[in-house]
């Protein structure tokens, strides 16, 4: 049997006296799209950081496609699409530059690209339909295009696990549909996609399964089940569909 794309067992992370994650266990098979739902402070970003190996766990372990996080990083297995606020959009890099950064782990000390790398970058750009905009400065793209540029970076990287942090924030409906189709397509190729989001309306069309997180995993199941109001109320305390419309 192929190892799980992401396997988290009993993961506990504390920031001083604050418990961010409390014994979280989670299995994600290759080729699945999974929504990660929880309010601010529920531990979504802590879980992401743990999967990326950015945090030391107080207990528990993380395996990525059968590797420990350090080995998975060296193999470039985990791709990351940051949330919009975490990126300096005025930074003087082009879309192609950003996608090329996905290849850096495979390049020599000077990070000079070879023909194969440039082909991989061009393919990734074509796949997210940004070929025509490849030479634009990254901040000159629309919200949805920006997200797709970072997905392309993960594709060029050859990521087997893709983590997306709020990919639908500030994105119009049409871009949202393009993004959903793209992620579904990547999953069909065997990529495991984990999406942290507040946007619960976008999820059913995209994800088969979802995780409800409140420092612990409250529920992990089919997306329709997780999105039932009585389940969401456990994670949010109020009806988040209502909250989502006003926010």
């Amino acid at each position, binding site marked *: 049997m192929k190892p799980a794309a992401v396997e988290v067992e009993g993961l506990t992370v504390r920031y001083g006296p604050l418990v961010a994650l409390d014994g979280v266990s989670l299995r994600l098979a290759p080729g699945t799209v999974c929504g990660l739902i929880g309010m601010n402070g529920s531990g979504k970003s802590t879980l992401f950081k743990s999967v*990326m*190996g*950015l945090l030391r766990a107080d207990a528990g372990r993380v395996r990525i496609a059968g590797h420990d996080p350090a080995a998975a990083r060296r193999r470039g297995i985990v791709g990351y699409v*940051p949330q919009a606020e975490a990126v300096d959009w005025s930074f*003087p*890099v082009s879309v192609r*530059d950003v996608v090329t950064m*996905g290849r*850096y782990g495979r390049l020599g000390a000077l990070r000079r690209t070879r023909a194969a790398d440039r082909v991989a970058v061009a393919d990734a750009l074509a796949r997210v339909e940004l070929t025509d905009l490849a030479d634009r400065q990254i901040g000159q793209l629309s919200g949805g295009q920006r997200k797709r540029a970072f997905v392309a970076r993960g594709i060029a990287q050859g990521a087997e696990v893709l983590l997306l942090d709020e990919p639908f924030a500030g994105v119009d409906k049409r871009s949202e549909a393009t993004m959903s189709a793209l992620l579904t397509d990547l999953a069909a190729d065997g990529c495991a996609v984990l999406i942290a989001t507040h946007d619960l309306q976008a999820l059913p069309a995209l994800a088969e399964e979802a995780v409800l997180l409140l420092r612990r995993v409250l529920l992990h199941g089919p997306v329709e089940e997780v999105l039932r109001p009585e389940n969401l109320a456990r994670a949010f305390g109020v009806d988040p569909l209502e909250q989502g419309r006003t926010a």
Partner: protein
Amino acid sequence: MNPLDLIVEPLSYGFMIRALVTTVVAAVVCALLSCWLVLIGWSLMGDAVSHAVLPGVVLAYVLGLPFAIGAIVFGFLAVGLIGAIRDTSRVKEDAAIGIVFTTLFALGLVLISVTPSQTDLNHIVFGNVLGVSVTDLAQVVVLGAVVAAVLLAKRRDLVLYAFDPGHAHAIGLSPRRSGALLLGLLALTAVVALQVVGVILVVAMLILPGATAQLLTDRFSRMLLLAPVLSAVCATIGLYLSYWLDAAPGGLVVVTQGAAFALVHLFGPRGLIARFRRASTKPVVDAVVHGERL
């Protein structure tokens, strides 16, 4: 007087030629480094490290070691202390930076006052580009070449570090190492530049060229070309002004660079005036462009 004499006459003096070479080398190296510093948001860190190297440089003088060694030790010491204060007390980072670099700088001033020396160590504080010896010049050229070569060789890693350190980590690279490399280069560059403008004004040469270039282009590769060219031209103009006006060379180099920034910010293609014109004459087009971006 023949206008050409304005340019040629100063070069009939050996000290002016040495001053010009030193100034241009320092201007180019500082400008390269400044491209990263302004993008990462390390201007204050540049200020801190460039001041904090003073006691290191004085101690290196006392012990007969190269200035560069003292500068690197105190550069990293300063960053270590800043981190330690920030992490172990309720003092915020900007206050921690202010505490550490002013204290180390003051320590440097104290050390200068008690160190008997042939050369006037106050030159380290204010710069003494007109008194640069052949040995000083050689040190500046060698250090400058090393810093420029390392920066250019590692430029892609450093850009990735500046843009998205999280991604660098995720693909198995070490953003921590890139940051340390940049700090080491910052300390070395401070040694190069203090010959020209002195410890106090090094930070100006470490911020202005990159900030000016940033206003002119949205391609990093062009920033890496524009910043050193602008910086070298301004430094040369500043040095000539100081000759003809008989005024402080270090100060005039920085004033010229500051004036270039002001001109670009006002009159450049993306400057305030161009933006004001666009906003007042083509509101419809602007609205469409803006709408598309949202």
